């Protein structure tokens, strides 16, 4: 089996670059309902970082995003999209469709953690 990127490259420099691009977006994340309507926008993220985790003697690198809504708003959501900014334009960077539509009541807090990355980088030596 061939292996490629080292953790030095994609786990650090590339991810840090990617994080800076996400950080530059005006609207950093949005929640959508089942019909595709925007139900919540996040101008700030509760967490935006990269993590490295060893799995089976390989390094895996991830971007970790946490959004938090402590508002009194009530809505349903089915999809989360995280955005990035490049050359004065903003694009989706990460998309996740939940298995079911969730409901946020007004008296509840919503916290969503998305950790996404690349598996099996160069073996740990």
């Amino acid at each position, binding site marked *: 089996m061939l292996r490629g990127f080292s953790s030095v490259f994609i786990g650090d420099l590339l991810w840090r670059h990617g994080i800076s691009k996400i950080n530059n977006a005006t609207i950093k994340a949005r929640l959508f309902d089942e019909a595709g309507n925007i139900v919540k926008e996040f101008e700030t993220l509760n967490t935006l970082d990269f993590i490295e985790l060893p799995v089976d003697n390989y390094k895996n690198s991830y971007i970790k995003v946490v959004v938090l809504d402590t508002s009194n708003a009530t809505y349903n959501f089915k999809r989360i999209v995280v955005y990035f900014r490049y050359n004065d334009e903003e694009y989706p960077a990460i998309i996740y469709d939940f298995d079911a539509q969730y409901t946020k009541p007004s008296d509840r807090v919503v916290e969503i953690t998305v950790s996404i990355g*690349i598996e099996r980088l160069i073996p740990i030596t």
Partner: protein
Amino acid sequence: MQKYVEHKQNVEIIVRILSREEWEKEQRELGHKDVKPIVNEKASFTQTFIYWLMEYGIGLIAAPTIKAELRAPDGSLIKTFTSLNELSVVTRDTTDAGIKVRIIDSSSDSYTFRYLNINSKRYEEEAMAIRHTFTQNYTKGSDQIADITVITYVTGCVA
């Protein structure tokens, strides 16, 4: 000779809907823990995002003086390259993006290699960016040309 590798994405999603009291108590007592992501095909980087990351990556690979190294089966250095014959971002369809590197050695050197290391430089820091381990040893004779292309993809993106 052309080789490529694929790097699948891993992801873990955690959704919690808590009362404010529960959440505030947890923040005080536990804080956040890192999670161990699992394979989940419902989440993805977009191809656009990975493409721009790769564009940034090839800028880093273009920077160091020694851009690539061929190494013998025992890991010893046998050949360095100060230029690449090709360095580009490539896609196969709407679900991946990768970095393509091609080196050509038309010298009269003779050697056997197993590894290709590709270096990067950011500010003053140089580091190995890509390491390819070939599935077999290759031998270049003095009357032969080594033409090596490696493409490293991130797969499973969404358009």
